[in-house]
């Protein structure tokens, strides 16, 4: 009864605020029960309208997925005229661009969303991130429990890189009895020239992933990989996905559930492997830059992508992750098991520094992986 009364008061107040919402109030206002929070959001929306546009960049969410997320954000916050731009780019080039902009004192990004723990920690240390206490951060308990949140700056999802292969193309090459269980199963001379992996020089996450395999399987793994398999580098996992799909390089060591799902929707028979040594759950984190040109849209967008509705939107866009918010129902338990069911390779993210990344890059170079021909 009390709840109904409160709702009626809220609706009455919204009607009185007629000039603000000529038609219907946006869903976020309709759904928000807390008056103080509603006021805060209303103020942000008004400021966001004045700002008028927003530019974000990410390394995992692809343009068509970003479009769906943006469309829903605009509807949910009643910002139909907001101009939103998205750039899909590898974490290395993204970091270079952001650093150049910081150097030029001319930031044109609002939010960057990447798996780049050491870089984000460095940005935080240098005061280049905007402090913002989104009310939704506290609901990201899985992230917090795993030590992947930084109060006032971010709360993370996680993603993985796992082996993925095209069953039909391998069969055409006479490889039919293939049921890999371990990373070492890929050290097979039959796979020479068929394997791809992410360019560790262009991405933090590829480098961190390689570092995790080094920890479980030793440096020898990469030395043998370079000698036996001679893999090629891709710049983005989507490129590796296309190669797996077309059969150009039918095996990738750095695929993931989303890419498997994308290829399966194109009627391509691909399998995703969960090696027994474990897989790396990498923090995938949106942060607001200190000099974001549109800080209020950024705050609203951060609220959105950390809220239950926003997370569902991200998931339904196709950009499925291991979400740091509990209670998100996975679309495919085979590809996206629950966070707690994944055998994760232990990783102390704070020990991931530019030096450790340089070491793994040097190791790959020593192993002849991605070497110039």
């Amino acid at each position, binding site marked *: 009864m009390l709840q109904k009364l409160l709702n009626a008061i809220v609706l009455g107040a919204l009607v009185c605020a007629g000039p603000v919402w000529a038609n219907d109030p946006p869903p976020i206002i309709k759904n928000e029960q807390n008056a103080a929070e509603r006021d805060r959001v209303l103020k942000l929306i008004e400021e966001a309208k004045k700002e008028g546009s927003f530019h974000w960049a990410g390394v995992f969410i692809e343009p068509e997925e970003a479009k769906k997320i943006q469309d829903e954000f605009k509807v949910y916050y009643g910002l139909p005229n907001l101009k939103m731009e998205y750039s899909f780019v590898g974490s290395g080039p993204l970091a270079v661009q952001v650093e150049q902009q910081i150097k030029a004192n001319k930031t044109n990004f609002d939010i960057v969303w990447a798996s780049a723990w050491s870089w984000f920690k460095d940005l935080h240390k240098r005061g280049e991130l905007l402090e913002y206490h989104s009310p939704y951060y506290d609901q990201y308990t899985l992230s917090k429990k795993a030590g992947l949140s930084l109060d006032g700056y971010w709360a993370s999802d996680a993603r993985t890189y796992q082996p993925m292969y095209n069953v039909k193309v391998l069969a055409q090459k006479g490889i039919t009895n293939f049921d890999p269980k371990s990373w070492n199963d890929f050290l097979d001379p039959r796979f020479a020239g068929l394997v791809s992996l992410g360019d560790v020089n262009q991405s933090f996450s590829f480098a961190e992933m390689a570092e995790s395999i080094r920890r479980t399987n030793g440096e020898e793994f990469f030395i043998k990989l370079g000698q036996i398999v001679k893999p090629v580098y891709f710049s983005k996992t989507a490129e590796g996905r296309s190669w797996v799909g077309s059969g150009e*390089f039918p095996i990738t060591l750095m695929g993931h559930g989303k890419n498997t799902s994308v290829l399966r929707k194109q009627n391509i028979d691909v399998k995703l492997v969960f090696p027994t040594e474990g897989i790396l759950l990498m923090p995938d984190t949106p942060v607001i830059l200190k000099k974001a040109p549109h800080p209020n849209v950024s705050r609203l967008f951060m609220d959105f992508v950390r809220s239950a509705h926003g997370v569902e939107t991200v998931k339904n866009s196709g950009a499925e992750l291991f979400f740091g918010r509990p209670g998100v129902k996975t679309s495919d338990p085979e590809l996206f098991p629950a966070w707690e069911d994944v055998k994760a390779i232990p990783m102390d993210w704070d020990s991931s520094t530019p030096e450790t990344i340089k070491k793994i890059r040097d190791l790959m170079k020593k192993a002849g992986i991605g070497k110039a021909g």
Partner: protein
Amino acid sequence: MSEASTLLPHASSRHIQRRGLLVLIYAMLLVSIIYPMLMILYESLFNASEGFFAHAGSVLTDRDVVLAIGNTLQISVLATLIAGSLGVTLAWLVARTDMPFAKVLDPLNMLPFYLSSVVGALSWQVIASPKIGLLNKLLEPVFGAGPVVNIYSITGIAFVLGLFYAPYIYLFTLESLRSMDASLEEAARMAGSSILNTAFKITLPLSAPAILSSFMLVFVTCAGIFGVPQVLGTPGHITTISTIIYRAMNDYPADYPTAALLSLLLFLFTAALIVLQIRFLKNKSFATITGKGYRPRPLKLGRWRWFGFGVNLFYVVLIFLPFTALCAVSLQDAWTGSFHWSRLTFNNYLAVLFVEDAARRGFSNSLIISSVGATIAIAVCFFLALIVQKTKLPGRKVISLISTLPVAIPGIVLGLGFLVGFISTPLYGTIWIIMFAYIVHYLPTGLSNMEALVQSVSKELDESARMSGASWSEAMRKIMFPLLAPGMISTWILLFVTFIREVSASVMLYTLGTETLSIALIRIMEYKPYGISAAFGVLQTLLLMGAVILLRLVTNRTSSNKGAH
């Protein structure tokens, strides 16, 4: 009345204006050409933490750098040989023989000049990638598994570059052969020399300066090119100097001193070759036109004329066939190495136009940069051409010399210079810095065209207008511009097309949000190697083809007007 006074509006203040004008021009050239190069020098000399010599030692002995230098040389030599054999053969067939349909094939031979070599690389990827290339798939039943052709190789990269740079050599050679005195060939033929013998012993040696000069130009361009080696070299682990400069700037943390050092090295190499080319041309004369009246007559190839036609047609097919394959890929929802009707879709085109922000931005940015940039470039070049050709201002030769310098600066090097030089200015992060770099990079092209145009207008016309009481601006408006307009429009379209397909300078200067067409294509190819990239490539090619058709219309109208007069 002196020539200078016909140009400058107020004779009384001429002296002050002259000084002001010179200071302005020199300042403009110093800021846009000399300053960026000095910044590269400064970056490589003083910003390496371990000191210049230690840094240079470690970079230049690095295995990857040594390999990249070797690859660059191999690719440049091979590409020049391929472009040279194609360009010279086609020019000879079109200009000096009775090959059928020469008039139709002539403009088709020039087509790659206007198209994007990055799109060309993408198209050849579809045809000749080692595992799923259409050609390899086609030949698999005959030769068994394993690639017959591999576009991800030094030869593959050189082949694509050779195809796309053949028109440069073709154009130079064609002009030289067309102005040749045919009596020398006829004498050789009457003395019993075969067609090929005549070609190799008489025709080509007479055109040697033009041919060798164009060879040098292609070699220098290939040594500094970025797009094709990046697209085809990445999957094949082939690096060149330009791609490792790009990598040094794109891996985090960016390595400015290494990129600057390698840029300096590349610049010195290309500059040395350009100096050689100039010296070489200085000592040679294009003595193919004799003083007496002549009319070039084509050599009769007899039954070989259709063979010649086949050779030329094959070149045209090598340009068009991959593009057709690209169209096919653009209509597939997923590319699996062969075309399937069940996978037919137009969604890739919709994605390029409505979903991919980078593609949309690429189109709008490139159109703005190219149209505004070409207009500014024409104005600047016209102004400089007037100064150089129609005045006796002191130091005008130096202006001409400095303006020609960018011909020796590879695009990626100029781009780095602009980045380092202008990062702290409001230009950084805008499309205007890219436009600025394009104008500077193609200043020699624009200026040489404008100088030729300005030279073609007799100074008496201008002088008689001034003597009849017309003011300087009236003389310009009523005499110069109407005469020069068609040539200016052609140059504008040429620059527009060149700017649309430019990639080397932009790759250093773009930021996310200011991508050009070619940069957007390269970026999209990183995550959509087929389908959407193919659709994007097709749309870019259609845009360029539209511009080429416009160019042909303008030049045809100009020729017919000239004929009528």
